[in-house]
């Protein structure tokens, strides 16, 4: 069914353009789509928060962009594109209190922040603005540092359907 192919191809490309230069649909898919992969360095792996200087990035302050600074280790659909925001779940979904927590650098104020990637649960996948970035992400062996778990798993009320992901500020690193 050609029309179906065309539809998915177009939407995948559009999704890729809209959301991220680095990744498209796929929990690990960082498909390089022509644009340079931004070396969002040293926060990687939570080892060192000292950063030589943030990369120039026009979309670092757009919450519906994968390049938004808070999304440095997010994995999933952006709630900002799904009727919620970077800190709020879309209507009718339930925020999982249990999650994993990392750090991201805000080029806007030069500060590093502790970010909580709470998932919103209880409906099927939002399907919009997929984003996967992995700064500081570890593996399933270290759950508290892994974005590969569905964190709706810790949600007693809406266990476990995953809808989208938020990136909430816990506080500045200090």
């Amino acid at each position: 069914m050609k029309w179906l192919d065309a539809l998915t191809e177009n939407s995948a490309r559009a999704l890729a353009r809209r959301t991220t230069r680095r990744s498209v649909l796929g929990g690990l898919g960082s498909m390089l789509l022509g644009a340079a992969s931004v070396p969002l360095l040293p926060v990687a792996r939570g080892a060192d928060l000292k950063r030589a200087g943030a990369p120039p990035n026009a979309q670092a302050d757009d919450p519906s962009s994968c390049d938004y600074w808070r999304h440095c280790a997010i994995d999933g659909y952006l709630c900002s594109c799904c009727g919620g925001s970077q800190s709020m779940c879309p209507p009718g979904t339930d925020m999982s209190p249990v999650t994993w927590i990392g750090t991201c650098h805000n080029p806007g104020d030069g500060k590093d922040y502790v970010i909580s990637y709470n998932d919103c649960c209880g409906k099927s996948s939002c399907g919009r603005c997929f984003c996967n970035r992995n700064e500081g992400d570890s593996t399933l062996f270290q759950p508290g540092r892994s974005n590969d778990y569905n964190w709706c798993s810790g949600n007693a009320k809406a266990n476990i359907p995953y809808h989208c992901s938020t990136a909430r500020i816990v506080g500045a690193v200090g």
Partner: protein
Amino acid sequence: MRINPLPPSQVNMHHALRARCRMLPMLCAAVVTLATALCGPAHAVLPADVGHGPTMATLPVPASKHWVWVNDFVFPHMADGMAHLIDGDTGRYLGTLSTGYSFAHILLSRDGKIIYSPETYFSRGTRGKRTDVVTLYDAGTLAVRGEIVVPPKRASNMPVIGDAVLTDDGRFLLIYNFTPAQSITVVDTKARKFVREIETPGCALAFPTGPRSFFSVCGDGSVLLVNLDDRGGAHKKRTQPLLPMGSDPVTEKPVRVGDTWYFVTFDGRIVPLEAGPDKATLGPVWWLASPAERRAGWRPGGLQQLAVDAARSRLYAIMHRGGLATHKDPGKDVWVYDLSSGRRIRQIALKNLASSIQLSTDSRPLLYSIFLDSSELDIYDAASGKLLRSVAQVGTTPTLLVTP
């Protein structure tokens, strides 16, 4: 002037069909042909299908060694997990399993007659009461043969092989749970019942080490060795930290040859863990890429990022160029190594990006490759790296490839 030999009603039918065929060309081409055939004066009447012959295709058991199961967690619609069966020799699509919410992967019984599938369902689709089961499918008909209800705790994560494994004797099925408390569910495949849950505090996934044993990997790099007795009872022993977990940790995607599980780190070190029922030791560590290649950014990535040809002692790895934090990125290259020497013996340039690779287990192995964000399965000759064929429209977000 009358140029169409068909009566008006049939002309309209053709127009209607052709209009629809812009939407559904393949299906409709057949219908239009059939309509023409039925209406045209010069054709013999085709025999009726209705009332004759079988209405469902079946598959030979055991499966061909050149078949591959493409597991799909269908990320945009996770309640609708699927597994797709493809014949690697012809590219034919052979059949489907429908496998519920947050699907990881199927497992094949040792005799090839049964397919086990840990699955999750909700009574109202994406809400309501959660039920986890191991569904048993008949390998010849792909029909449901039974199910075993297990605690509703299956981990929901980016699928990895360690999410569910069989012990080497094929008797016990082990399922990783995450609530976020970590444990392993033990299912007796012989008695077809849930046996028990083994607490694995701080330790994840299951990797078989023998007929009745497995290990989980703990967050500090130590290994939890677990032995099962005949009734599924568990005896646990925890090693000292062995596997690297620091700034260059091992991934949760190792492959096994005999007693050795080959782990790979983010930066591309191969870390062999020789593991039996009672002990685990590290073997010599080696790099996938040379120092110069590493400086150029070469590192492994992907979901099912390694594959092994155990008979020939070959390791295949998906490689890409990227910096830190690209440990999950797909690659367009597969590098092949001789496991006994650690020497690279081939570099295969793939047709498409790959996040998962797998090998068939016969004497003339095929190499399968697929990308999570594509649905084209590419099939290569594993020895030469030559592309044999591509199969389009296989799934939505294909994850793990399982070969008989």
